[in-house]
């Protein structure tokens, strides 16, 4: 417990330092890439608990992201400005932002229970279709809610709160907040994996009948994993909305859900470090291909959608040559440790 607090404080300091460094030395464009990567990591690592660890194929992550965004944004707007009229952007206060994040996480988690309890009785493709349907229903329902701005969504969502000494930072404090959530999520997820609950989830993935026979209540455990994923997807949605200062239901199409699954499959389903790698890779790929596309266009042979073509080819190549993803189910750290640490120390996992 004391260690938990120490780790949290270290994460706070680390994220503050990172944001300070970026504000001081790095161009805003690159900071933007990093923030997008951070949000992608939150999505990938949280979905990995459902799809990778528990082995339940969910395609509805964007739906939970939408719920989070559309719960947090109105709360944050209302608390900060006291009205919904147009005007200049302001920073949300720490308390208001915290409340909005908590509310969106809890909201998405509740939706997770309501959707997960019946949907997780389905298996494989059927679960994928049900969760995909949930995501689309959520998006379309949001489009028709006039109070949430209808199809054009919400604008003038406050900036993320300032911290002591950050007033002069051009890029704001988004990186701090996004990566604080990344750090918390990664630590919690690793801890979840290495606990009796994580083993139960993996047992369900590996052999559901055997897990049930050992007394693991698989439906309850699956809903737990689903709610955990939904909670953090909701927070990712809220961060995304606050980062962009505006949000539309169409930000959360099925394409985004599929994108998150692609990150997991590329990185290796079931591995936290794999999910992170996949998130970085899938977010950066179109960005890196953009200059190529532009130079081709200016040289007279435009290939529109080059990034999508390369993206698709890469996916196909991956599925042929490395179907288990970059890391498979192993963790980067573990793999490195195995090759670094001499065998005498390696027996440490044994009973003392």
């Amino acid at each position: 417990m004391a260690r938990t607090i120490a780790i949290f404080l270290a994460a706070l300091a680390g994220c503050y330092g990172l944001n300070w460094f970026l504000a001081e030395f790095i161009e805003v464009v690159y900071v933007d890439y990093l923030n997008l990567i951070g949000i992608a990591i939150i999505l990938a690592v949280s979905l990995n608990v459902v799809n990778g660890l528990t082995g339940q194929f969910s395609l509805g992550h964007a739906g939970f992201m939408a719920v989070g965004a559309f719960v947090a944004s109105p709360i944050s707007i209302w608390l900060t400005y006291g009205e919904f009229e147009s005007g200049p952007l302001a920073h949300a206060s720490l308390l208001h932002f915290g409340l909005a994040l908590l509310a969106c996480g809890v909201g998405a988690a509740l939706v997770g229970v309501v959707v997960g309890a019946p949907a997780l009785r389905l298996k494989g493709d059927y679960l994928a279709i049900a969760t995909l349907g949930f995501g689309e229903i959520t998006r379309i329902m949001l489009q028709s809610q006039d109070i949430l701005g209808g199809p054009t969504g919400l604008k003038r969502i406050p900036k993320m709160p300032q911290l002591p000494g950050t007033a002069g930072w051009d890029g704001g404090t988004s990186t701090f907040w996004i990566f604080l959530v990344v750090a918390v999520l990664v630590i919690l997820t690793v801890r979840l994996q290495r606990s009796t609950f994580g083993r139960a989830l993996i047992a369900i993935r590996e052999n559901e009948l055997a897990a049930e026979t050992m007394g693991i209540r698989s439906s309850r455990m699956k809903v737990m994993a689903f709610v955990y994923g939904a909670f953090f997807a909701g927070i990712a949605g809220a961060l995304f909305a606050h980062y962009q200062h505006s949000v539309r239901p169409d930000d959360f199409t099925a394409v985004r859900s599929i994108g998150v699954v692609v990150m997991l499959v590329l990185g290796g389903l079931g591995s936290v470090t794999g999910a992170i790698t996949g998130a970085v890779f899938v977010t950066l790929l179109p960005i890196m291909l953009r200059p190529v596309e532009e130079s081709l266009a200016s040289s007279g042979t435009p290939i529109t959608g080059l990034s999508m073509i390369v993206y698709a080819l890469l996916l196909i190549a991956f599925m042929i040559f490395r179907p288990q993803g970059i890391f498979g189910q192993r963790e980067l750290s573990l793999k490195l440790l195995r090759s670094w640490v001499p065998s005498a120390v390696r027996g440490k996992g044994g009973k003392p």
Partner: protein
Amino acid sequence: MTCLLKTAQLTIRFGGLCAVDCCDLEIREGELFGLIGPNGAGKTTVFNMLTGVYEPSEGTVTFNGATVNGMSPPQVAALGISRTFQNIRLFDELSVLENAMTGAHRHARINLFDSLLRTKRHHREEAAQRDQAYELLRFVGLEERAGLPAKSLPYGHRRKLEIARALATKPKLICLDEPAAGMNTGEKAELSGLIRRIRDELKVTVLLIEHDMKLVMGICERIQVLDYGKTIACGTPAEIQNNPKVIEAYLGAG
């Protein structure tokens, strides 16, 4: 000795096929009971009905005074019945130790937040699960392999690990589904020793399905014989060995 598990007129039909027909079993506490029969006699189907995998079409299963019919596998596990599988079902990606630890999950009295925040209760639970798992691995003779992934184990060890995992749920009755299948003579001898120790040292009642006659006759106190879903004999090994119906079922008439 009190009766631990009792089935009455246990019947299951799959479409038109009656896989088990009016099976009456009575297993006493502390007994080593064998259920044998030729291939397709319905032995594993009986197991599946006992452990909540299948719901019987007719008849009842009573365990320790509670009715098992209609319960889900986790509920049956909570009553104190555990089992192994004919086609081994280990959690391949987990280590040997972790496999044995999953059996203890149902006894864990901590919640998710204990584990996420790494409270004292979490550490205590982990330590307790690990100690119990080590003890059971030692019991079945797999202690040295604790850190290996389960999928790397050779066949005979996989069977033993399944037994250790089932024992980790702290059952009153353990159902072993053909534990000796595919084992050589030496491994079989070791296995019969292990099964005896489960009963004698851990005081767990054993229900054994097995094809290997020598093994069953050597360790079981009472044996019931199934053929085409029907009970054709029940008694001590000596009685079963000389029963003409059993000889006919196994060797064919004439």
